[in-house]
């Protein structure tokens, strides 16, 4: 217990001292994951909307595929991407392996099914009358879709936050396709894995603290926004 307390205090001191290496790792994590979520969100919500509001052959199959993709381990995504991006792979010429771009692609692949599945659940349970009302008031299909998305924004925001939580905390994909290169592709989770394997718990705990603080802030943010929403039981 004392070891844990000491390590935590030292970790806090390390963070507050502005250690360049630690803050670079944090910066890589945030840059990669924010870019990934930013790229994945709009197309994922569009796919979810089509799945919820349009009938087409194979729709149920596509929904099942996305739900199944939720269970894909991050390391499997990393391994598949490694095979695709390595020199002998079909996309080897792009020279993306061990770059932040590769990490972003990996995280997009991880976030996308989660965003689609959760957004689809929100949109599926949305009120059909919202769509019909928008249309009958003269909105185009696109504007009506935006209106419906606005109506279920709290559910969609929860999907985005959950997906962001998943990708910033994943280690498998980033480790395999990023290569854990210091000042380049080393992020919070790969650094924790490395430091723990070396027995250097202080840095690991410091980075873990950052992740937990982030999770806390995200949840405060979500709660604050939902606080403005209608209360069901007063």
């Amino acid at each position, binding site marked *: 217990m004392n070891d844990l307390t000491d390590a935590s205090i030292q970790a806090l001191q390390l963070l507050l001292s502005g250690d360049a290496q630690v803050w670079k790792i944090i910066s890589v994590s945030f840059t990669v994951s924010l870019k990934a979520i930013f790229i994945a969100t709009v197309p994922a919500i569009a796919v979810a909307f089509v799945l919820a509001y349009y009938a087409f052959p194979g729709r149920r199959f596509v929904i099942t595929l996305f739900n199944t993709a939720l269970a894909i381990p991050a390391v499997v995504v990393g391994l598949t991407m490694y095979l695709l991006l390595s020199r002998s792979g079909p996309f080897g010429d792009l020279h993306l392996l061990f770059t932040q771009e590769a990490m972003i692609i990996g995280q997009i692949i991880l976030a996308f099914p989660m965003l689609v599945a959760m957004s689809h659940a929100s949109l599926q349970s949305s*009120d059909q*009358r*919202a769509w*019909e*009302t*928008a*249309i*009958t*008031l*003269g*909105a*185009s299909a696109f*504007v009506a879709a935006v*209106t419906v998305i*606005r*109506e279920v924004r709290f559910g969609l925001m929860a999907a985005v936050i959950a997906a962001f939580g998943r990708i910033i905390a994943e280690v498998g994909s980033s480790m395999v396709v990023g290569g854990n290169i210091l000042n380049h592709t080393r992020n919070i989770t790969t650094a924790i894995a490395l430091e723990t394997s070396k027995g250097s718990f202080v840095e690991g705990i410091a980075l873990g603290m950052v992740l937990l603080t982030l999770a806390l802030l995200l949840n405060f943010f979500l709660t604050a926004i939902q606080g403005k929403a*209608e209360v069901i039981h007063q």
Partner: protein
Amino acid sequence: MTSVIKKASLSLKRVCFKRGTRTILDNVDFSVSQGALVLMTGQNGSGKSTLLKITAGLLKPQQVQVSFVPHDGQQGSYPWPRLKKLLRRKVCYLHQHPYLFHGSVYDNVAYGLKRQKMSKQEIEQRVVQALQEYSLESLIHRDCHELSGGEKQRVAIVRSWITRPEIILLDEPFSNMDKESRKKSYALIKQMCQQNITIALTSHDPLIGELSFDQHIHLYQGKITHKSV
């Protein structure tokens, strides 16, 4: 009932609608005249709401022939994508329990006007004017979720009216309304008819006699069993 026969402004013929194996509408002919007030009655499940939704271009029927007067004066079997656009341009449909978007009464009433690409100033002016005209100006900044059922219904009617559709379809507009709210809604509907807007509404309401209808249609198991002008 008034005996004035007005020229049909919209006519739907041989409307058929099926859900699975169940026939909801079976070769129904439905026409409304410009500025007319039409009452549609029938039991639950007789196909009233379905007919209104098809007329508003919100539901795709298996079969329909539509003619618009004086828009083109021709009867035609338009392909559904074109037909629904034409219908949506002319007709506004209001649900039995109207859906109000998140936001204020102003946001809701302004919604349709924003789609018409008006200036912010013009929208504001028209919304204020419309709410004043229907004695709802005190609600302008109220959150829609704080409104009573009757207020919601009246705000929704004004929201439909302000977009200036040729036809407004009201699905059970007086359900869940108290006597006072009904009175206000009747006045609102009468006002709209005077402005030459066609209104078709469904109702089980016995007090509906307070409105003077130009046409009465009774639906039974997906067929029109009674029609009077």
